[in-house]
């Protein structure tokens, strides 16, 4: 597997912290520098590059992952804080070659163009749709208010979310 450029994960003189966490059903034990962001940990330490990094200050939502059942920004959490947590990233959605119903819905309803923001949208929607199986368009727009997409204009993302809600029932 290709390893991405990773200047900030080079070990420095800082003390490292031992963490143990579950990501997509797999248990990991790793040594991390305290300042390593969870987003960078997932991408560079675990090679789970499906979690995308956009703004790195909590505005764009691209790095959203599910941590202990709740959608959170992985760029605003240190990897050290995920010790003992259960995480789901976009890689945890499909079963082998079978896409998750929400991913299918995004494909069918053209809910993505360049796809950069899509993992964040999916990971935001999964806990939301589990709690709201019959969401209104307005509720979906509110749930997605913290995710930025620069291609679609959001219309088809909302349609995909509606379709996904039906499929996930």
């Amino acid at each position, binding site marked *: 597997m290709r390893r991405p450029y990773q200047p900030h994960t080079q070990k420095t003189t800082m003390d490292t*912290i031992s963490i143990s966490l579950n990501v997509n059903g797999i248990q990991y034990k790793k040594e991390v520098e*305290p300042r390593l962001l969870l987003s960078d940990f997932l991408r560079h330490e675990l090679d789970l590059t499906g979690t995308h990094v956009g703004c790195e200050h909590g505005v764009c939502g691209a790095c*959203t992952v599910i941590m202990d059942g709740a*959608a959170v*920004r992985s760029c*605003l959490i*240190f990897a050290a804080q995920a*010790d003992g947590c259960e995480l789901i990233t976009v890689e945890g959605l499909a079963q082998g070659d079978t896409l998750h119903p929400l991913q299918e819905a995004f494909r069918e309803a053209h809910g993505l163009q360049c796809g950069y923001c899509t993992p964040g949208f999916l990971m935001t929607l999964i806990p939301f749709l589990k709690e709201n199986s019959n969401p209104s368009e307005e509720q979906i727009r509110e749930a997605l*208010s*913290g995710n930025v997409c620069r291609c679609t204009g959001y219309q088809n993302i909302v349609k995909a979310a509606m379709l996904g809600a039906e499929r996930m029932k």
Partner: protein
Amino acid sequence: MKPPPFVYHAPKNLDEALSLLNQHSSDAKVLAGGQSLVPMMNFRVAQPAILIDLNKIKELAYIKEGSDGLRIGAMTRQRSVERDAKVANRAPLLHETVPHIAHPQIRNRGTIGGSVAHADPAAELPTIMLTLNAKLLAKSQKGERWIEAESFFVGLFTTALEPDEMLVEIRIPDLPARSGYAFEEVARRHGDYAMMGAAATLTLDESGKCKDVRLVFLSVGETPLLSSFASKVLVGNKPTPELIQSAAANTDIVPSSNIHASERYRKHLANVLGRRVLTKAYERAQQG
């Protein structure tokens, strides 16, 4: 966009956290939900040498009912506050305001105490604390003290907390009988920091005259701003639409211009939002 190195501590209980804070005080920063501090560290605006992470301290996350109001632990997530039936019942202004804070992902992680102690004048929670006359419990290794919301917010991102003190609990008193409340804000997009916002509580006496009013603005100056003008105009009088209009057209608001809005526009917003929240609070006070 990566934070500078720091030494990380994750104490398991409050005593341990207070001891660490006592030991490191001004070199250390307390990490609550991290939804303001971590972006500041990513930008390297904040470069604390030591970080004391409170997220493992379960004893600081609770919402309890007391005889005269609510007690909320500082590490209670904003999402929990938003969804709690006790908060909806006993502190409806807080309940109505929390959904205006950023986005669901931020509220899943952000805490009530973190936002209050961060003291951003454009944030909703400090404004609500001031509007509701909340009392804030600060603890250090030396002991504890209660701080009134009115003396807690002392400047831009600055509170009355000493370097060795930590905010641990927020007490929100019940509103008196015949009280109403309201919150409104204007932001470019839902969840963005507001260009202007206003919160109000209004209490009537038995004859229907205004007994007490608190009108607080956010995003105006260095702290949330309690309008003394509104109480001068309204207290002792029946809040007619004309009187509410003049109470909201206050002179003690001097917002500054920035790239998002001019001073003139923000002053206009303050007048409009002030009128709206006072009107709604009055309507609700008449019903309750």
